[in-house]
Every structure is written in C-alpha cells, then in structure tokens.
C-alpha cells in the first residue's frame, strides 16, 4: 500500500484544488443568486443576451474561455489591468486566476440550479408574506431563500465539483505552475506526460474520485434533511 502515499507535491496540488474550488464556489454564489433571480423573475430587453452570456462557457471550448480570460483579465487586459492598478488584484498566473476560471466555467450550472428552484417557488407564498407586512427584500430572505435552499446547495455542490475538474480554461489562463496554479487535473495531466508518472496519476485520480463522492453524498444528506424538515419528502 506504500504506493498510495501522496508525495508533498501531490498534497500541494490537492490542497490547491480544494482552495480554488471553495473560493470559486463561495465568490460566485451571490452573483449566481442575483443572475438566477433576474432570469427567473424579471422581463427586460436583452434578457436573452444575458442568458446566452451566462451559458456561453458551457458551449464554448474551455480553451477559448481561458483565452478570452487571458485577453481581458490578464495584467495587460482591459479589466485585469484596471483591477491591478486600482485594487492590486492580480489574476494572471495566480491561484486566484484559477479560481476565477473555475467559477466562470461552473457559473452556468450554478445559475441553472438556482433558477430552476426559484421558478419552482410558489409565488403565492411570497404574496402572503407581503400581506403580513414583509417588504420585498425581507420576503426574499425569509420565504424565497429558505424555500430554494435545496436548489442553492445542489448548485453549490455542482459548482464545486465542476471547479475540481476544470482543466482547459484554467491551464490556458493561468498555466500549470506547481504550488500556484497546478490543480488536480493539471497535476494528473503532467504525470501522464512524463515517463513513470502512472502511479502518481492514479493516486491523484483516486483522490479526485474520493472528493467528488464525498461532496455528492454530503449534498444528498443535506438536501434530504432540509426537505424532511419541510415535510416535503
């Protein structure tokens, strides 16, 4: 069983992947909620365009998304340059860039899951909350949000899983720097490119499977607990 033990470099890749995915999930959540709410509840000119933009990363080759990120968010890109100059935030070739790439690649999944659950909310319940004196933001916090919680959690798990596996956009945008941007998939890819890397690739593959399964089971249990507490099970 000795071959199963991870080397320090491999551990670094695992930690980095988890950190990148966690940040990608948490930071994209408020944006995902807002966009999902707008798409589910509002009608406005350009809604189809917004919907298309959100879903673009799902359809485009990941390498293209990564390249677009490199062009816009790189240090000399229009957005990246601005952020660097005014806020000192740098994405290019940093782990933050990996998180950004992962967040954007997973964003359609997050929005989709939340949007579907918002559309499933009985709006008559929100109207009832209004008659009881709750203002629209309070209605969202006290009625809508609790009711869509299972969908939000499902969306977050999907985002996390997608971020763990993101490869194309990440490697294009922030390259494959060990300890900084070399996430699990990049590390596995690197192993497969060198002679004798098979054992390392297999180890990291097993780790990937374990993390994905744990996340999936945790989300299942959480969703069941929530729906049971609402007597919807």
């Amino acid at each position, binding site marked *: 069983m000795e071959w199963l033990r991870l080397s320090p470099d491999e551990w670094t890749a695992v930690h980095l992947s988890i950190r990148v995915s966690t940040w990608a999930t948490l930071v994209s959540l408020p944006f995902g909620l807002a966009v999902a709410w707008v798409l589910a509840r509002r009608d406005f000119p350009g809604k189809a365009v917004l919907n298309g933009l959100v879903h673009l990363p799902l359809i485009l080759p990941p390498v293209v998304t990564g390249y677009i990120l490199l062009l816009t968010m790189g240090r000399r890109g229009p957005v990246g340059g601005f952020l660097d100059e005014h806020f000192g935030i740098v994405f290019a070739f940093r782990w933050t860039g990996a998180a950004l790439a992962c967040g954007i690649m997973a964003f359609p999944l997050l929005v989709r899951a939340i949007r579907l659950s918002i559309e499933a909310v*009985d709006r*008559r*319940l929100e*109207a*009832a*909350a*209004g*008659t*009881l*004196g*709750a*203002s*629209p933001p*309070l*209605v969202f916090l*006290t*009625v809508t949000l*609790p*009711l869509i919680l299972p969908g939000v959690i499902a969306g977050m798990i999907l985002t996390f899983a997608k971020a763990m596996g993101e490869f194309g956009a990440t490697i294009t945008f922030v390259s494959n720097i060990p300890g900084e941007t070399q996430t699990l998939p990049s590390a596995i890819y690197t192993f497969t490119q060198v002679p004798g890397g098979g054992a390392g690739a297999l180890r990291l593959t097993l780790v990937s499977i374990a993390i994905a399964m744990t996340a999936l089971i945790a989300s299942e249990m959480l969703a069941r607990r929530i729906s049971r*507490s*609402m*007597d*919807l099970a």
Partner: protein
Amino acid sequence: MTLAVDVRHRLGAFTLEAAFESAGRLTALFGHSGSGKTTLVNLIAGLQRPDAGRIAIDGRTLVDTAARRFVPVHRRRVGYVFQDARLFPHLTVRQNLAYGRLFAPRAERWADVPRIVELLGIGPLLDRRPGRLSGGEKQRVAIARALAASPRLMLMDEPLASLDEPRKAEILPYIERLRDDAGIPIVYVSHAIAEVARLATDVVVLAAGRLVASGAAAPVFARLDLAAPEERDETATLVEAVLESQDEPFALSVLRSAGGLWRVPRIDAPPGTPMRARLRARDVMLALDRPERISALNVLPAVVRWVVAAPEAADALVGLDAGGDSLLARVTRQTVVSLSLAPGTPVWAVVKAVSFDRANLPGRIPAPGLAPTGSGTRS
C-alpha cells in the same frame, strides 16, 4: 370602520367596475366564479394595482390613481386569508404565527396571540408543520396568522371553498366569533348563499365585474335569494343546539337551542352532544296566534326582523329571531299582507319534526355526516 371602494380594473376582456362603501362588521363580497370578487380583494390588499380609482379605509387612502398614490401591500396592514391557506411550509405553525406578528409596528400590535390561538382552537397544532395539517386546520392557522399581524381589516377570500362540508361546519363558528368578539372588520368573499346568510352584516353583490347591489345583509341577501331561483328551495339557516334527551317510544330526539326545544327524528348520540340543525326557509310556517291541536311538533315564539319581497314574485322571505336563533321563513307575499308581517311583529314559527329529513338531519360537531351547510355552493 368604513371601507370605501371606487375602482375600475381591466384584465383582458374582463372589466371590473365597482363603487361602494361599507361600514359593516362583516361585509360579504358575493357573486359567482369570475364575477371579479378575488380581483376586488386583491385590489384592496394591494396585490394588484387598479387601472383607475380609489380605495380607502377610514379615510386613509390605500390607492388613489388620480393622486398617484399607492401604498404597497406590506404597508397596508390588511390581513388576508387565502382560499388555499398559503402557510409557509418551512415554518412550524408557531413560527407561522410569529411571522405574522413580526412585521407589525410595535405601537399597533393589538393582537393577543395566545387568545387568537384559543379562539381558533389551534393550541395542539403549534409545533406541527403545515404539511401535517388537515385542510380545516390549515385554514384556521391561516386565519390566526393573518390576525397575529394586528391588521386593520381582514380579507377572507372563500376561506371555506376548498373544504368539505364537515370542515366548513368546523370553521364557520370561529369566523362568527371573529366577527362578534375580535372587533375587526372583515371582508368575506363567497359564492355560497348559506355562508353569506349566516355570516354577513353587509353584502356587496358582483356579477360579471359589475356591482349589482350593496347594503345591509338582510335585504340584499333576500334580493339574491329572489334572483337565484335554482337555489331558493335550499335557502336555509342553521340552528346551533345540544341534544337534550331521547323520546324512545316515538323514536324522536329533543334538541335544545337558544330559542327553545326542537323535536327531530331520532339521532343516535348521547345527551349533551352539540348539534347543528339545518332548517330550510320553505319548511318554516308562521302563525300570529299560537296554533293549538296541530300536527307539527315544533312551535317556537319568534319576532320578525325583516321582510323582503320582489313586487313581481309570489313569495317573500322573512327573517326571524327566535330567542337568539336566526331563522328564515319563505311565505307568500299575500301572507305578508294578510298577516301584516313587518319588523317587530311577534309570530310563532311552526316546523314539522319530519322537515328534518335524512339529508337535513343534524350531526355531531365536528364530525362527518353533518347536515349540508353550503346549499348555495357551486364550485
């Protein structure tokens, strides 16, 4: 409290146009499905915005399109009981009630939640989730939740429509208590004549989006009764009673109500069981002198409260107060003239025991098999 409404609202091909004022304790909005009742209630609640017009409670404007004024729903403090209870599934009954209370301004919180819980008999349900409640229980909790918000006005949109007869009979007394004890004006939407007759102090009648009649309940209700011939045979009132004793040799049971004793065909229940007897207007006879040597077993003293008759109709409807029981009697217009029936006239109400036929037999409260109460229901 005075509710003043003068609105025009278009929904596709349908136009609602209604202007009325009501100061009643319970104003019934009456009309068939699609007559615009729910739209009107939604306009009062602020869930919809009228195309034009004004709605005010006690001179406080809720919406006035001419003055470009619109108070949003959450600032109107109008309690709304929906047809489908709309309890929050993620909260317990207790939390649903707390939610109602939460947003009421401190200075205006008159609602005494423990008393409301008692009034509606929902104490045993407090720790349950709405998913585990029956339809009748849900509706009672919904009423309690709306009350807990200390509203200035209660709107009830066919709160009984989704319930079967026993459940309706279970909730009606609570609404009556609300009307009589809580001191909060109620606007009650219904298309069931029996409910309106039992509950309303004032009635607003809508048909196809237009106001047909409005005013004090008794005369308006009678006009409705005359206007709906297919329901006239079933126009009835309910007498609340308790089973007093059994008359075994004759297979009769004796009920005691506020107005006196009633003999009805035997009911299998122990003495003391609460009962509700449904009495159709056409089964009640009137006499000026106490009839002697008459086959009918039930003869009770009563006073005429009101009489209404359409000039062209053969019959009239007489509202009676029999020692606290409210009865209706359908008699001919000729009788009204020949007996000089007018408000205040003392009469004897005569009811045959066999009028309480199988379909009209009273039952235990609340239990299945109750006498139908919603004779006017058409859903």
